[in-house]
């Protein structure tokens, strides 16, 4: 299984890097986002603006890369005609999806570096990390959280040929609802339950808490519990979806492009 996992991660990274759109999302998009978010916060007087500018644009890029890659890969594999071969290979398709998502997420994590560099070079902004180990831990949890949310969404894409449409619908709302670029309290109250059901909301909160000069351990523990709970929930959903979906895919023939 390790060979399949590692082989798929490598192939996924090669495949994604070969796409101009992915390179744009990975490099140009976080640069532009950093500039735009900097302008948004410039006169706001917000004390933690730097973390919203750097982390916000990085997380936006990370989510976009996942949206357009991990989820979009189902569409691409379908249009390239490789989806039937992957689906019916003796390797577990779950392992392939997990490996593809890991490959994309690792590569897409570069958006955080690009945002960091852009903010530093253009605006002399820097992200002060008072507790590097806590921040690194939060970053790992964030990446796991992003992988966890994109897998069940990817599975749902196996059921339909309109993957591209859903992918576009998911991109911006998640960015807004998860508070990547502004504090969530500026959103209306009715959006709060939706935000709280999305693990990137809690990952973002975890990253911001890890950047505080004095760590609020109670808040950190609560946020960590939410992250872990939602990751487990998404993992459970993945298992449930898979059992239902692999049967429906063979019944409804949705693996190929409709003629």
């Amino acid at each position, binding site marked *: 299984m390790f*060979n*399949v996992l590692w082989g798929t991660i490598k*192939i996924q990274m*090669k495949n994604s890097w070969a796409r101009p759109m992915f390179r744009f999302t990975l490099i140009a998009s976080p640069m532009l986002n950093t500039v735009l978010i900097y302008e948004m916060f410039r006169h706001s007087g917000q004390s933690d603006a730097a973390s919203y500018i750097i982390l916000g644009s990085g997380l936006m890029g990370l989510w976009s890369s996942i949206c357009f890659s991990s989820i979009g890969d189902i569409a691409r594999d379908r249009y390239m*005609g490789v989806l039937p*071969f992957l689906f019916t*290979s003796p*390797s577990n398709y779950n392992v392939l999806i997990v490996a593809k998502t890991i490959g994309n997420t690792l590569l897409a994590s570069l958006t955080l570096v690009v945002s960091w560099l852009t903010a530093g070079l253009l605006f002399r902004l820097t992200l002060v990390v008072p507790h590097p180990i806590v921040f690194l831990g939060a970053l790992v949890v964030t990446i796991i959280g992003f992988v966890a949310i994109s897998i069940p969404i990817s599975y749902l894409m196996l059921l339909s040929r309109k993957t591209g449409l859903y992918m576009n619908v998911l991109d911006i709302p998640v960015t807004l609802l998860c508070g990547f670029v502004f504090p969530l309290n500026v959103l209306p109250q009715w959006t709060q339950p939706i935000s709280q059901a999305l693990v990137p909301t809690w990952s973002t909160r975890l990253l911001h808490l890890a950047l505080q000069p004095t760590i609020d351990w109670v808040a950190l523990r609560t946020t960590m519990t939410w992250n872990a709970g939602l990751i487990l929930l998404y993992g459970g959903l993945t298992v449930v979806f898979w059992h239902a979906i692999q049967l429906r895919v063979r019944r409804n*023939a949705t693996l190929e492009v409709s003629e």
Partner: protein
Amino acid sequence: MAMISVNHLQRDFVQRHSRTWHRHPTVVHAVRDLSFQVQAGEIFGLLGQNGAGKTTTIKTLTTLLLPTGGQATVAGLDVARDYKAIRQQINFIFGGELGLYRRLSARDNLIYFGSLYKLPPTTLVQRADTLLAQVGLSAEADHLVETFSKGMTQKLQIARGLINIPKVLFMDEPTIGLDAISVQNLHQIILQAKKSGTTIVLTTHYLPEAELLCDHLIVIDHGQEVASGTVADVIAQGQKIAPKAQIASLEEAYITLIERSAAHV
């Protein structure tokens, strides 16, 4: 025991036609009642018009689709129930240029698809290089697939189909759109695979190809059998239903059989 056994196979599709908010489902019977057997080590042809049910039959046998009715086994395993075990023993290729990662090299494609069959990495690299040599793509092994011609892509597809040394290889129109020399090359590769013991199920619209390659074949129309047997058997069945005609080739027999079948639908 037969390598493949198909008994009264049925496969329906529900098509939904959208008209404003209302969706009208229509049931299409792609395969109505199909039975045949394929012996180990032979090349078996599935012939029929577009929409006759050939590809649906192949997709059912390769575990991509569930049968709606009837039963089918591959290597003694049930396609509906034992799909995981079947997948280890088969491979398949579809004609055309789909089915490969176009932004990866030929070698990367073979190694990746081979890794899905859990072959050890060293064996896999050797196997990929052997197959690339066999299909005449050694010099292009590190070229991106997107730079390949149709013929080269098709050769690579066959190499991909053979990477796991399958017991059964399903080929859906493998020579579609290829020039005469590429077709001849592919025939050699297919015959070589047969020689090494692979059972091959082939669909094709090119009747001389079926005549040349197939040990046994079945002609289907509207998801049902019209004729079956060896090439000589099918020619005899065509002659039987048109006694006044001079039927000397599979092509003539096929046209006679399909026209007669269409007249009955």
